[in-house]
């Protein structure tokens, strides 16, 4: 069994004058039919046409608004949308049309609908047939646009959404059977009471039964109220758990802040030490500036010392020459002659010159020389320390700036939450848990009382049934009543089971699709579908992601996963029509959603702008594309045309 569109024909519909689009049947490999068109060229007009042909209940003005613009002043006009499709093995040709003519300042519209199934004109109950194909409430799961899709990811559904979902799942039909059986039981019991009262027997039993049924009704109400309170308490507890996670994260931030502040204090202490050393270095800087002059003067002093030693030697030589001249004898004992005397006197003169040259007092005492040598040596080694201090101070200042920036950022993020305390949340949690336990005890008590009351009611009923066997009519009624009750019980259990199974199935498919598309597959673990069909994403650690905290793109992915799951849960899944579905999505989400489309196994009509499907992405999904159409604008004639791309 399948559901496939075969062709769509439009006449004077919005931007289109006359257009027919043929759709190929999807095979196992290719199921995507893509329409490319810029904004305003007519993508949404196609979506509206499909919505109109199935469930077009438009008033005169709306119909006029759907009329192709150039036709609006043409007097009598006809607009028509025809969809040919295969459903459950039969070819259906569904046409919805309207003739529109001006009438004074208003318009006369005559709408009509025609359905041909396998060549046979369907004369009546067309709406019932359509409702079986795509129920009105569920068309939102088949024809959807990106701009509206996110409403399914809300914490609470709008009115009618829950009913539409249950309609898709086929739950109302089974529920109706259960309700009908319950009504029948009531009628049979009334009949039974009639027979018994006519016989004037067991009036006390009948009265007792009435009382016990009132009690059961009252207990059922109490049970529902308690259930509601339990749900509210559980919701509040879940919310608190989320808060707890937030506060824990905050507490972690506070701890980080404290660590950073301690580190900052350490750095500042270190900076003080460095600055103190720098002060010392600055005090001794003048000496370091004198290193070179001291070096020079020490060298000169050494040189002077050497000259001084030489002078002492020369003076000794002078003394010897002077002695020889004074004695007139050579050291060998011979007399010196005039020539020798002359030579010695010349020598003495030269020595005097040398002594004079080497003259002048020494500048530095030996102790001063030693002291200056030490100072010179000390300052040379201190130069390296000074350089090191400069780089140390620069490095510690960078660290201080970094930690300071981190601290400011953390303080900013903690602003307004300074008083958040995990212990407050624990207290609230304990309080809620106490209340929940009390409510659960209350619920158990009510259920016990309800069981007792039902047992009593059954006892009375048994007694009444026994009395009924006394007449043939009563006996037959008793058996019917018994069968109906058993059937009702079985159907009630089946409804509960069915609802649960369907919900679990949808939950599984939604989770599978969501996890294949989400850009956080390592963080998210799945999606829960609640009893009211609202959705909740949960993480791998079990915590719930508040719907409000999901990004627009994530909400869209969540909603897409859900409605896809809903459609795939129906007996005959419908083709998907998606109008600009990637509005809020980042590249990862968009690509993964695109990848999921071929796996849906139904015909998919994708109405896309060039931004929705850039060439690279189009090439990637090319193996799955069945057909491609381009919507072109004929501006001269104010109409749009659809050509194969």
């Amino acid at each position, binding site marked *: 069994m399948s559901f496939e569109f075969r062709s769509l024909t439009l006449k004077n519909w919005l931007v289109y004058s006359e257009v027919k689009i043929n759709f190929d049947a999807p095979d196992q490999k290719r199921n995507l039919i893509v329409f490319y068109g810029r904004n305003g060229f007519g993508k949404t007009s196609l979506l509206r046409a499909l919505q109109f042909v199935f469930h077009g209940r438009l008033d005169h003005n709306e119909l006029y608004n759907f009329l192709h613009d150039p036709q609006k002043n043409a007097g009598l006009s006809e607009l028509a949308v025809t969809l040919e499709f295969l459903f459950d093995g039969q070819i259906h040709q569904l046409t919805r049309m309207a003739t529109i003519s001006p009438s004074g300042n208003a318009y006369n519209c005559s709408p009509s609908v025609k359905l041909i199934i396998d060549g046979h004109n369907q004369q009546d109950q067309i709406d019932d047939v359509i409702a079986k194909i795509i129920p009105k409430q569920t068309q939102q799961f088949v024809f959807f646009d990106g701009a509206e899709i996110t409403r399914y990811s809300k914490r609470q559904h709008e009115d009618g959404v829950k009913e539409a979902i249950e309609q898709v799942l086929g739950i109302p039909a089974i529920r109706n059977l259960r309700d009908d059986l319950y009504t029948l039981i009531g009628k049979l019991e009334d009949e039974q009471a009639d027979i018994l009262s006519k016989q004037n027997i067991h009036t006390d039993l009948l009265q007792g039964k009435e009382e016990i049924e009132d009690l059961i009704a009252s207990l059922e109400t109490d049970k529902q109220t308690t259930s509601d309170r339990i749900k509210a308490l559980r919701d509040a507890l879940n919310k608190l758990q989320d808060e707890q996670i937030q506060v824990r994260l905050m507490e972690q931030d506070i701890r980080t802040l404290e660590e950073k502040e301690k580190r900052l204090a350490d750095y500042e202490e270190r900076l003080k030490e460095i600055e103190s050393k*720098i*002060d010392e*270095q*600055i*005090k001794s*800087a*003048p*000496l*370091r*500036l*004198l*290193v*070179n*002059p*001291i070096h*020079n*003067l020490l060298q*000169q002093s050494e040189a002077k010392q050497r000259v001084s030693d030489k002078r002492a030697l020369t003076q000794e030589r002078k003394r010897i020459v002077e002695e020889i001249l004074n004695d007139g004898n050579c050291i060998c004992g011979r007399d010196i002659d005039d020539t020798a005397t002359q030579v010695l006197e010349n020598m003495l003169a030269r020595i005097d010159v040398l002594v004079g040259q080497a003259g002048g007092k020494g*500048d*530095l*005492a030996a102790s*001063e020389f030693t*002291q*200056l040598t030490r*100072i010179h040596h*000390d*300052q040379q080694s*201190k*130069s*390296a320390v*000074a*350089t090191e*201090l*400069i780089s140390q*101070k620069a490095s510690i200042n960078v660290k201080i700036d970094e930690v300071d920036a981190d601290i400011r950022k953390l303080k900013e993020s903690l602003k307004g939450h300074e008083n958040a305390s995990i212990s407050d949340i624990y207290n609230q949690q304990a309080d809620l848990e106490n209340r929940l336990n009390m409510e659960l005890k209350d619920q158990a008590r009510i259920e016990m009382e309800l069981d007792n009351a039902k047992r009593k009611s059954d006892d009375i009923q048994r007694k009444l049934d026994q009395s009924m066997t006394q007449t043939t009519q009563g006996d037959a009624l008793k058996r019917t009543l018994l069968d109906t009750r058993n059937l009702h019980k079985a159907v009630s259990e089946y409804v509960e089971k069915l609802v649960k199974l369907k919900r679990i199935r949808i939950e599984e498919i939604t989770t599978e699709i969501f996890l294949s598309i989400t850009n956080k597959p390592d963080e998210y673990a799945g999606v829960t579908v609640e009893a009211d069909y609202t959705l909740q994403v949960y993480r791998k650690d079990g915590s719930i992601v508040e719907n409000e905290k999901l990004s627009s793109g994530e909400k869209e992915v969540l909603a897409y996963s859900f409605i896809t799951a809903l459609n795939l849960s129906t007996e005959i899944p419908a083709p998907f029509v998606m109008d600009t579905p990637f509005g809020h999505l980042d590249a990862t989400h968009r690509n993964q959603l695109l990848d999921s489309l071929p796996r849906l196994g139904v015909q998919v009509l994708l109405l896309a702008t060039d931004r929705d499907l850039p060439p690279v992405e189009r090439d990637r999904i090319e193996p799955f594309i069945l057909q491609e159409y381009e919507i072109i604008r004929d501006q001269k004639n104010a109409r749009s045309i659809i050509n194969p791309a």
Partner: protein
Amino acid sequence: MIHLEPNDRLFISEDLIGFADEITKQGTVPRRIDLMFLGFGYAIANKLALPTDVKKHQLIQVAAIDKDTLLATEAVAQWYAKEIELGEVKDEKALLDLICFIGIAGIRALQDRWKNKGKSQIQFDILGMGVE
């Protein structure tokens, strides 16, 4: 070598008092006398010309200066006098004047060098000078 008289006081020129106060108040240089010795070292390293007209403003006594700085300053001043051909320093008074005049020449140059610079920048400059 001639040594300074312990009871004599070093001096700077009056026009430098404001700068010396500012730089010591900020904590850039601990004391005014440290600035004086920095100026002395800077002037020697850059062979700056000595000032001719100075209105003296007295600083601390020679006795308060640490021995290493004092000895190095006395020795280098006398060496420098010969280097720039001022001749031999005659006595303690002449040595005091020479040291202070060299210091003043240096402080004036530093005042110009450190114009528009903050404390850290000046300190980095001072520490860097020693390793030039």
